[in-house]
Every structure is written in structure tokens, then in C-alpha cells.
């Protein structure tokens, strides 16, 4: 048993090092894939066990005792990471070009698993940093500027976390979660930690985890970093790695929930600190979704979309009810599978066409039908079309938000789902439909491993969509209470129901009826794009008949005021502050202090980051 | 209705004598003012609110630039194909909003390789009129970038159909076939 956890966490790392060492095409792919597959096997094996009792593993490294534990909750996160991880490995078989990528991709895999499984802050922090470092290296390979932006924000997050851990250690004298939790609980009556200190702790940890999750004011690294890594890796980066931040927020609840509640009380019937998280989530959803709609680059679009979807999870956790947690956890899974799928599809498109901008693509559905089908599943799931995993989780979040009487937050979800609809359709239109540029005539279907990877991610989208009970049942068991009722196919909350199977059956029925009507009509004949309504004018293929750029320009025009506000005004203000900062820091810069130099660099880069992206 | 119409051919001879005796009306003052700036032109008054200038073809741009100070609107550019004389007559029709006077500015150019400077820089609308005149008569307006098939299809455009030597009936027969039910060539006037 002890070995299992060890292998689970470190197998990918070892495989990565081996793959890097034997940098031979074929061998490194095989090793890497095996490394990524091992955690899946182990997690599958432990499924029955974790529900009843947790699996522990402790090692002592340099005087510190590192505790790893596989609990029901951890298992869930680890399983999500593992599904995406194996899909990533399959994707990377097709897209990776060197052992370097395998090394760091698998290293971050280890980091993510370690973060999920750690039960003390030492291991948590070390593996967190390992994960950050590995993903940074992945971005660095493609784009130095974006990687630095990511690095700076991660460093800020890490500093915040380290500070938070230090304060906690000072106050409680412990680093393992169980003790800290107990100590903080005890502190409710003792009151050793003041209100200000708890607020500081909350803000520090929120910053640390918010950076990783890409929550609203700290999301600026995400679009660049997501879009500049190897796209197969991004499926893991966005699908699993960002979940570390979400997991952190959950951890915040577990460790400090009671303390924070005691200190800050409630606001209109909501936990005050949770309310903050909910609003951060809601703003993230709206802002990131709006920005996603306006993107012109396929990678940027999904990057912003990832940020927005993680916002949903934060929002759900912020609701603070058990239903909210269930919805959030479900969305962790569905986001991982549909967004991982999206990134693999993107990887396939970029691999086969070499283009990333929407204006260079179009009409690929005929050339890459399987990839298109996978993309369509992801689209349906993301936009929340009923019998899909994306809908089930969103449904739970809706129910949770409205039941908790957070109407405006729920309104943000409504807006976000409309926007999600808009940006996925833009993706569909620009990439798959419309007129095909003549230089894409020779595009072929994506390679087989990538397709298998997509299929691995597509199946859960449908499976957990038709049978959402599979997930909610596990969550019920993990929490030890009946949060969401119903059976495998039916979700029942105190106020609403959703029978996914019935919806599926009725939908199939409806499609069958419609299909019969369709079949009764005349048989179709296929016509080219030039034979369409052009007000009667004859056209040839040389005209550009697809909207390739500025598809949502009217929206940009309607949002004119806001876009201007966030770009210009914000930049000017920051620039003013930056100048002052630069002046004061220049003196310390010349005194040769490396510490201040790095701070200076960090702040300048942060400013650059905020300027460039927000 | 004034009856100031004169046969075109004789006009040239009479205009010179007419120029000095401009009446002291709105129109007279206007013509005088313009003629002072453009002595190469000949000006006359046809009737109330109708004046007329005759300008040599090579100075037309210069003249219209002068005239554009008083005449804000270029109403149209009419081309008349005087086949017998072998000349195109270009009539720039101007309208003065401030004075409420209409002016014909006439000029003649030879029919073969007819070329004129464009007046697009004075009145941008001339682009359209010149395109039209080019299309139907084949006059080339130098400096107009959009000359070419405009209203017509390229095939008709090449024929410049409004020229007097364009044989319309023959062309129609060639293109659409001969089976007209109402055409009899022996008749001089035909029913429409």
C-alpha cells in the first residue's frame, strides 16, 4: 500500500526523467505514456478502498516529515488529473518534439498529484513549486515573455503562500493539515489569531490559490501561458493544473472555514469570506467569458474560456453550501474533460495546419471529421447542452446559487453561459465551417494517438452527462452525506430535478422524429460554397465568403466603454505607480542587493503583465 | 418661355460680338465677374437664370476651377456627338445655389481619340459623370481612376453605344436574333 502512493506520485516524474535521458523518438513516447498510465491504474485499483478508509504514506526527508494521504476527496481530484494526464500523454506522443517536453510535462504531473495528495504544508509547498516550475519550463520553451509573466505571478503566489504558511506555523506550531485544522478549530475559543491576522491569512492563501486557478485580477498570466505551451500539454495545464488552485480553495475551507466563519460571520445569510470567493468567481466568469468572445486566436479563446470555467468552480465553492461544493466538484471533472478535449482538438488543428489564428482557418470539418466530432462533443458539453457532463455540473451550480439566494451571482452564470455559447460557436464557425482557404486543401486527419486521447476525454463527457449520478454518488460518499439525491441517471436536489437519461431518451426520440421527416423529403445533392445566395451574383472561390476576423465586432462596439476603461485608464494608473516604484527601487537596485533586484523585476513584469493582457 | 435658341453652328461667330453687352442683371454681373477672371472664355445670357459659356477644351479645367467659386453644384456633364462636324460637344452644367443661376459650359473636342482632363478634383461627383461619358462615348478623362465598364457590360462598353455611328438596329439583330415582330426596314417611322 505504501508503495502504491509512492509510485502513484513519482512514477510520472521518473518516467519523465527516463524519457529525457533516452531522448529517442519512440522510446521516450513509450516511457512517457507508461509513466502517465501508471497513476490511472493505481487509482483504479484503490477506488474501492478510499471510500471506506484513507491510504497513508509518510516519508522523512531532511528532517521534515512528508505526509501523503489518499482520501476520498483526494482521490477524486487525482482521478481527474489522471484522466487528463493520460490523454495528455497520448496527445504528446503526436505533438512533442523532444524529451525536454516529456520531462517537464510529467514532472508537473507529479507535482499536481503530489499537491492533491499532500497532507502537510511542506510537501504541499514543495510539490506546488515543482508543478509551477515544470509548467513554467513548458511555457518557457515556446515563449519567453509569457513564461516570465507566468513566473512573476507564480512567484507572487508562492511568496504569499510561504508567508501564509509561516504565519500559520508561528501561530499553531504545526505544518500538517490535521493539526493545523484542529489548532484553528481550537482557536475559535482561544482567540490567539486576531481578526486581522485571519484576514491576512485568508488574503494570502486566496492570492496563492487564486493565481493558480486564474481568478479574476490574477488571471493575466493564464491566456498567455495556456496558449504558448505545447497544446497537448495545455490540456493538462488547463484541465488539471489549474485545479490545484481550486483544490487549494477547498483546502482553505477545510482548514480555516470554521475560523473564518467565526471571525467574519455572515453577510445577508452568506458566509462573508465565501461570498468574496463567490463574487471573485462570478467576476472571473463574466470578464473572462467576454474576453474569450472577443479573441481572434484559437488558443487565446480557449485560454480565456478556461479562466472563465474555473471561475464557475470558484463561484460554486463560494456559494458555501454542500450543494455548491458538489456542483463545484462536478464541474472540476467536467471542466477537465471538456477543456482537456478542447485543447487536444486545438493541438490537432495546430499540428495539422500550423495556424493558430481564426482568420487563417475554415472548412476543416470535411478534412478532419473525427477531430471535428470530438470538437463538437466538447462544444456541446461546454455550452451546457443537456445530456452532457457540462450541463449536469452547471445545473448543480445554478441550483446551488439560486437556492443559496445569490441571485446576482446566478445572473452572472446565466450571462456566462450565453457567452460560452457565443465563443464556442465562433470556434465552430471559424475552424470547421465556411469557406476553406486554398492552402488548407491538403490537411489530413490528426494522428491516431491524438485521436485516442481525444476519445478518452470525450467518453466521460457523454458518460457523466447521461449518468451524472455516478459522480454525485461518489461526491455524496466522499462527503458522507446525501447532498444530491437520485440515482445514477437522475439528480434530485431539494428543489429541483434533472433526469439525464430521460432527457437523452427524449432527445433521441425527438431526433428520430425529426430524422424521419427529413428522410421523407427528397434526397440531397451536395453543392459547393460558391453556389449559395450571393444576392444573385456569380462568385468564385477567390472571394472571401467567411467572416474571418472580428466576428463579434458588434459586441466589442457595444462594450466599447468598458473595453476602453479597462485598457487605457487602468494602464495609465498602473504606469504612474510603476514610475514611482521604479524611482524608489533604483537606489536599492544599485546597492547590489539581489533580493531587491528580483522584487523590482517582479513588479515591473507584473505591471507589464497587467498592461499586456487585461 | 424665352426663345433664345440659336443654331449651334452659327453660335461661334456671334458670341464675340455679344460679350460686351451684358445686361446689368444678376446673371449679367455673374457672367462679367467670371469673364474677368477667365478672359479666354465667351459668356452670354440665354434667359433669366440661364447663362452660357464657351471655353476652349484645353482650358476647361482652369475655367471650371474659376467657375466653381460661384457655381457650387455640377449638375451634369452632357456629351453631344456631332458626327458631321466630327466633334464631341461637352456641356458642363453648373448650378449656383447662392445665385440661383444655371450655366452651360460648352466645349468641343475632336471625336477621334477624345481626351479631356478630369474635374474630379473640383467636384468629386464628376467621377460618376465622367465614367458615364466615357462608357457611352469613349471619351477618356485623364486622371479619373475608375474609367471602365460601369453601367454596361464589357461587350457593350467596347462599342460606346451612344455614339451616333453606333448602328443600334444592326447590333440588336446581331445579338438577339432577327425575329422582331414589329420591325419593317422600309418604313421610316415605326411603331414603338
Amino acid at each position, binding site marked *: 500500500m505504501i508503495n502504491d502512493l509512492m509510485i502513484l506520485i513519482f512514477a510520472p516524474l521518473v518516467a519523465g526523467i527516463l524519457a529525457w535521458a533516452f531522448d529517442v523518438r519512440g522510446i521516450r513516447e513509450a516511457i512517457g505514456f507508461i509513466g502517465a498510465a501508471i497513476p490511472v491504474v493505481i487509482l483504479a485499483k484503490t477506488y474501492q478502498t478510499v471510500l471506506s478508509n484513507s491510504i497513508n504514506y509518510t516519508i522523512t526527508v531532511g528532517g521534515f516529515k512528508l505526509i501523503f494521504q489518499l482520501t476520498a476527496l483526494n482521490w477524486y481530484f487525482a482521478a481527474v488529473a489522471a484522466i487528463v494526464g493520460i490523454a495528455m500523454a497520448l496527445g504528446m506522443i503526436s505533438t512533442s518534439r523532444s524529451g525536454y517536453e516529456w520531462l517537464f510535462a510529467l514532472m508537473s504531473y507529479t507535482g499536481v498529484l503530489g499537491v492533491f495528495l499532500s497532507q502537510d504544508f511542506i510537501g504541499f509547498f514543495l510539490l506546488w513549486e515543482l508543478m509551477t516550475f515544470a509548467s513554467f519550463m513548458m511555457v518557457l520553451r515556446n515563449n519567453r515573455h509569457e513564461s516570465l509573466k507566468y513566473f512573476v505571478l507564480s512567484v507572487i503566489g508562492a511568496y504569499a503562500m510561504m508567508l501564509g504558511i509561516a504565519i500559520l506555523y508561528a501561530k499553531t506550531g504545526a505544518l500538517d493539515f490535521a493539526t493545523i485544522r484542529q489548532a484553528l478549530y481550537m482557536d475559535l475559543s482561544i482567540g490567539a489569531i486576531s481578526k486581522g491576522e485571519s484576514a491576512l491569512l485568508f488574503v494570502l492563501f486566496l492570492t496563492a490559490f487564486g493565481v493558480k486557478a486564474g481568478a479574476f485580477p490574477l488571471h493575466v498570466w493564464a491566456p498567455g501561458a495556456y496558449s504558448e505551451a505545447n497544446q497537448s500539454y495545455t490540456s493538462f495545464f488547463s484541465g488539471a493544473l489549474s485545479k490545484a488552485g481550486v483544490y487549494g480553495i477547498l483546502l482553505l475551507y477545510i482548514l480555516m472555514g470554521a475560523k473564518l466563519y467565526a471571525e467574519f460571520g455572515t453577510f445577508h445569510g452568506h458566509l462573508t469570506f465565501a461570498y468574496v470567493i463567490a463574487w471573485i468567481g462570478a467576476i472571473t466568469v463574466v470578464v473572462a467569458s467576454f474576453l474569450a468572445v472577443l479573441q481572434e486566436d484559437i488558443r487565446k479563446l480557449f485560454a480565456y474560456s478556461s479562466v472563465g470555467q474555473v471561475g464557475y468552480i470558484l463561484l460554486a465553492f463560494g456559494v458555501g453550501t454542500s450543494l455548491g461544493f458538489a456542483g463545484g466538484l462536478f464541474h472540476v471533472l467536467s471542466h477537465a474533460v471538456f477543456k482537456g478535449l478542447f485543447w487536444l482538438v486545438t493541438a490537432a488543428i495546430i499540428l495539422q495546419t500550423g495556424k493558430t489564428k481564426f482568420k487563417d482557418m475554415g472548412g476543416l470539418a470535411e478534412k478532419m471529421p473525427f477531430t471535428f466530432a470530438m470538437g463538437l462533443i466538447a462544444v456541446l458539453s461546454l455550452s451546457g447542452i443537456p445530456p452532457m457532463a457540462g450541463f449536469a455540473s452547471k445545473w448543480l451550480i445554478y441550483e446551488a446559487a439560486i437556492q443559496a439566494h445569490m441571485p446576482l451571482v446566478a445572473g452572472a452564470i446565466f450571462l456566462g453561459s450565453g457567452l460560452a455559447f457565443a465563443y464556442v460557436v465562433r470556434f465552430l464557425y471559424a475552424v470547421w465551417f465556411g469557406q476553406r482557404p486554398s492552402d488548407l486543401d491538403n490537411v489530413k486527419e490528426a494522428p491516431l494517438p491524438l485521436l485516442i486521447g481525444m476519445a478518452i476525454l470525450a467518453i466521460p463527457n457523454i458518460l457523466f452527462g447521461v449518468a451524472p449520478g455516478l459522480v454525485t454518488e461518489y461526491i455524496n460518499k466522499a462527503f458522507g452525506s446525501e447532498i444530491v439525491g437520485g440515482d445514477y441517471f437522475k439528480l434530485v436536489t431539494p428543489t429541483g430535478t434533472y433526469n439525464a437519461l430521460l432527457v437523452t431518451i427524449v432527445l433521441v426520440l425527438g431526433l428520430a422524429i425529426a430524422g424521419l421527416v427529413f428522410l421523407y423529403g427528397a*434526397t440531397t445533392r451536395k453543392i459547393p460554397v460558391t453556389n449559395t445566395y450571393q444576392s*444573385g451574383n*456569380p462568385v*468564385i472561390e477567390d*472571394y472571401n465568403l467567411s467572416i474571418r476576423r472580428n466576428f463579434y465586432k458588434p459586441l466589442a462596439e457595444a462594450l466599447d466603454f468598458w473595453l476602453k476603461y479597462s485598457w487605457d485608464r487602468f494602464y495609465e494608473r498602473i504606469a504612474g505607480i510603476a514610475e514611482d516604484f521604479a524611482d524608489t527601487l533604483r537606489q536599492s537596485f544599485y546597492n547590489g542587493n539581489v533580493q531587491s533586484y528580483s522584487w523590482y523585476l517582479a513588479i515591473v513584469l507584473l505591471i507589464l503583465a497587467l498592461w499586456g493582457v487585461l | 418661355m424665352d426663345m433664345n435658341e440659336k443654331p449651334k453652328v452659327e453660335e461661334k461667330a456671334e458670341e464675340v460680338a455679344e460679350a460686351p453687352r451684358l445686361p446689368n442683371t444678376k446673371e449679367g454681373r455673374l457672367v462679367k465677374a467670371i469673364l474677368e477672371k477667365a478672359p479666354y472664355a465667351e459668356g452670354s445670357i440665354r434667359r433669366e437664370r440661364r447663362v452660357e459659356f464657351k471655353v476652349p477644351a484645353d482650358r476647361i479645367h482652369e475655367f471650371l476651377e474659376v467657375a466653381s467659386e460661384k457655381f457650387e453644384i455640377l449638375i451634369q456633364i452632357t456629351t453631344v456627338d456631332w458626327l458631321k462636324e466630327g466633334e464631341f460637344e461637352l456641356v458642363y452644367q453648373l448650378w449656383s445655389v447662392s445665385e440661383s443661376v444655371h450655366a452651360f459650359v460648352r466645349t468641343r473636342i475632336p471625336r477621334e481619340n477624345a481626351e479631356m482632363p478630369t474635374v474630379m478634383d473640383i467636384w468629386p461627383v464628376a467621377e460618376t459623370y465622367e465614367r458615364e461619358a466615357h462608357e457611352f462615348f469613349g471619351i477618356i478623362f485623364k486622371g479619373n481612376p475608375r474609367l471602365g465598364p460601369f453601367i454596361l457590360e464589357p461587350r457593350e462598353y467596347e462599342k460606346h453605344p451612344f455614339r451616333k455611328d453606333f448602328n443600334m438596329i444592326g447590333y440588336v439583330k446581331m445579338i*438577339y436574333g432577327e425575329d422582331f*415582330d414589329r420591325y419593317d426596314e422600309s418604313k421610316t417611322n415605326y411603331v*414603338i
Partner: protein
Amino acid sequence: MSERNDDFITYELQEFKLFEPLFRWARKKSLWIVAFCTGCGGIEMPPLATARYDFERFGIMPNPAPRMGDLFLITGYVTPKTLKRIIITYEMMQDPKYVMIHGSCPINGGVYWDSYNVVKQFDKYLPVDVAIAGCMPRPEAVMDGIMEIMRKIESGKADGWKRYRDNYEWYKKNQDELFGEGWREKEGKRWLAWI
């Protein structure tokens, strides 16, 4: 779906056996006009659609989309430039489709019988189901023409679309004679230099 039917000449038309009478009745009562007014006659379309004549009583409705259209009203003289567009739009419409020519001009050139830019005999280029004489035909006359076309649809005599498919070679020859071979590409390319 099926790749073999890729042009409308070789395309096999669907035969509805059982419901054909029902469809025929529906076709008769629901004629959608392709919104393409080709000439002066277009001015009588709004009166036809409004209070005094109101052709919507008979299910007639102008529709901008040619794919859904049934009735192509050639409302006046046709210039070659327009005829190209008419042919393209007509071929875009789906069978069964009907053409009604409106006024003297498409019949024999009308007032413009000697004009170099007006097509003299429209039925050389596209099949015609009903022709209304007059310049311009009064709305009553147009309504009568529409009634005639309804009668023809009911009795199955409105078969212009069938004739077009059967005699496509002849129609195509006439069209090519008027416009020159490869006119579609040529016309299509015309604007490339400008945009």
C-alpha cells in the same frame, strides 16, 4: 449526402406517391415569390401586397431567400446584366419552381424592342409558365396571372422546371450565345481587382 447527384441535371427528383395530391394543393396555395424585381413592374408589387389587393390572402408572400422560393416573377424588361443574376437565382431555387413574366418587355422587348441592352425573348433563356401582357399590367392582371399559375399547378401543367431540366442544353446554348462561354467565372472574377 450522395455524391453522384452533384449537378441538377443528373439529379434524380423525388417522387412523392401517396402525398403528391396534398403537396400539389399546398404548392398551389403557398407560392412564395423570390424577391427579385427586375424592372418597372416591381412598382406594382407593393400595391399587390397591401390593403387594396393583398395577395397574401392566397398564401403568396415575397421571400428574400431563393432556396425557399417557388414563383419567380420577372417584373419587367430584363437586361443581360440582370439576366445573368436571374439565371443564377433561378438555378438556386428548388424544383418545382415557376416563372411568370410580367409585362410586354420580357415577351418581345416591349417598348425597348430596339434597345441594345434589353433581352427580347425571355423564354429563350429560361422556361416560362405564365406571361402577362401589358405595360405595365395592372395588379388585377397580375392576380389573374397568379390564378392561372395556380390552375396550372393544380393540373400539373406548370412544368417549366421540368422543361428546363429536359432542354437544358438548348437553354444553355442560348445563354452562352448571349453572354459568351464561361460567363459565370468571368462575371465572378470581375470584382476581384476592385476589392
